[in-house]
């Protein structure tokens, strides 16, 4: 068995007074693609927010070990700098903030953290333009305000663009395929597949199996009512398609 990049143990988490994650266990292997499937409202997005340190989530018990350290009390930016990236289900719009300026700030924050030299505007733009083209985004996206007035598909491509520029170690994709037409889906999954290098790990969160035809998972985990109730190989997808989540019982 390969190395564990993240080990979530008995995670309990609340939003407000409501407990959403109820003793969740999940082990993610380095270099592998893990898919989390589950019905709407099961707590999938909550899990992604707990891992990345969103303010809404209060972890009341359990651990999130990442690269051997419990990160439950870390600031969101520290988790990001250590290589955790979340592609948001609904990326927020930030008016007036230039997309390229934002992304260069983020890339340079990471480079600085890693002791690398910061990229100047020209170097950065060259790289960004190349990826914008690869992802089939309009060149104007470079200088538009961050996510402002972007279509659903454009927002998701922009998330993938950020992922590719930031070169994270653990990539969480929350409903990356929602709102994507087939061309966008292809472009986005190509971008994701290109990031697979045997070291980098993926957590693909979805309630539709469609995306899994494009990004082949190594493991399938079923999340229901705040817990992982089943873990299996990719063959589970077909079974879920056929029988639905209702038929899956806790192992």
């Amino acid at each position, binding site marked *: 068995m390969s190395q564990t990049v993240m080990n979530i143990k008995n995670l309990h988490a609340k939003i407000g007074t409501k407990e959403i994650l109820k003793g969740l266990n999940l082990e993610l292997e380095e270099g592998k693609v893990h898919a989390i499937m589950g019905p709407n409202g099961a707590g999938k997005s909550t899990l992604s927010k707990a891992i*990345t340190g*969103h*303010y*809404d989530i209060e972890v009341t018990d359990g651990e999130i070990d990442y690269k051997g350290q419990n990160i439950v009390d870390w*600031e*969101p*930016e520290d988790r*990001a*700098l250590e290589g955790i*990236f*979340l592609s*948001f289900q609904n*990326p*927020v719009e*930030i*008016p*007036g*903030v230039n997309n390229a300026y*934002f*992304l260069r*700030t*983020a890339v340079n*924050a*990471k480079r600085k*953290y890693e002791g690398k030299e910061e990229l100047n505007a020209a170097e950065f733009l060259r790289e960004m333009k190349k990826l914008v083209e690869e992802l089939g985004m309009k060149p104007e996206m470079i200088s538009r*305000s*961050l996510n402002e007035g972007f279509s659903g598909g454009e927002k998701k491509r922009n998330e993938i663009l*950020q992922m590719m520029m*930031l070169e994270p170690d653990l990539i969480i994709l929350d409903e990356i395929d929602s709102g994507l037409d087939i061309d966008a889906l292809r472009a986005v999954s190509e971008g994701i597949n290109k990031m697979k290098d045997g070291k980098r790990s993926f957590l693909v969160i979805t309630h539709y199996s469609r995306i899994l035809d494009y990004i082949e998972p190594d493991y399938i985990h079923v999340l229901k009512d705040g817990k992982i109730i089943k873990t299996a190989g990719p063959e589970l997808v077909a079974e879920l398609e056929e029988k639905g989540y209702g038929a899956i019982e806790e192992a």
Partner: protein
Amino acid sequence: MAQENQELDRAVSGEYALGFEIDIEEDKVPPGLNEEVIRFISKKKEEPDWMTELRLKAYHRWLQMEEPHWGHLEYEPIDYQSISYFAAPKKGPESLDEVDPKILEAYEKLGIPLEEQKQLAGVKVAVDAVVDSVSVKTTYQEELLEKGIIFCSISEAIRDYPELVKKYMFSVVPMNDNYFAALNSAVFTDGTFVYIPKGVRCPMELSTYFRINALNTGQFERTLIIADEGSYVSYNEGCSAPMRDENQLHAAVVELIAMKDAEIKYSTIQNWYPGDEEGKGGIYNFVTKRGLCEGENSKISWTQVETGSAITWKYPSCVLKGDNSVGEFYSVAVTTLAQQADTGTKMIHLGKNTSSTIISKGISAMKGQNTYRGLVKIGANAEGARNYSECDSLLIGSECGAHTFPYLESKDAMGQVEHEATTTKISDEQLFYLRQRGINEEDAVSMIVHGFCKEVFSQLPMEYAVEAKALLNLTLEGSVG
């Protein structure tokens, strides 16, 4: 959530970095206001009799007026008899070498290069620096004079260009326009005078830095800018004041006149001392600024970034008299700590096909209270007048407030007026998004705030936009723990 708010508060409460005091001997009159004080000021300034008489006339008007209290502002009554109305540095410098090194040092701390050679980002900037009530040094004056451009202190203008001053001073803001304007008319001590002759495009940004230094000194500048037919000028005013624990009064008057086809761009970066978290100290800033688009196709554009003062009462306005004339108002007003700002604009449409644009961005943090008050008035003959107003408020934290009072008076059913207003909170989602990308909280807040202000910053000359951004960071950021 509550904890998150506190963190935000900490993140946004910057120390007032310009709160140092220039230690120079002051020459000032004892506190209080009467005819004698006015005569003293006029004499000190070596003014002709006609000016002394005008001052006295304004003083008597002022005595009959009452301090206005319609603003959304709360403050202790101002004791006008406890204020000293004149302070001048004792040394009267002739050249830069004679300028008190301490003043130069203070300017250096403010980041203003006073030497003529120093070019700010490759652009020549002529600086008329005002320390308390006397213009210390006007740079570039000679080079400008070759083009017929007059750029000097208002006191010099009264002595050297009396005809221009007599014709235009009080023509846009009458001496009895309002309480504070009347007070200013009686006791104004210095300020800037600009005249751009016909067809001349002013080759550089003109700039004045005001600085209130002396204890208990009111500062009353008066600025008059005249752009003759077909001319253009961009003028920048920047202000800061040292830290005090008593409130000081600042009541300035600015008059702009744009003739046919002329354009005036007036930018302000205001960073007077805001007072402390309880509102103690800080500048009371009661300012009357008005521009007259006298001729056809003239244009006046106000851009202001207001980050300082305990109290701000300020409504830069445009009187659009000439047909097809254009008025613009772009404003960022920040209130944090216990600051209160009641600011906005008036656009008075008198000529045909006149148009105006109002973009107002209010940012409130901590206990700051921010009020936008705007009037769009369309006169009976202003056929085809158009106005577009956009007032956006950004709240940081939960103890601050934003208020919007747009007024419209239209005598012309043909006028076209659009108004949009939004109030948003810096959302946790935006903050989290940026932090998830590895950007620290402080940088994330400033990125969101700069984005919010973008439409206004883009109106500022480049170097000033950079300064405005730095100032916003200074105002809104402290040390994130």
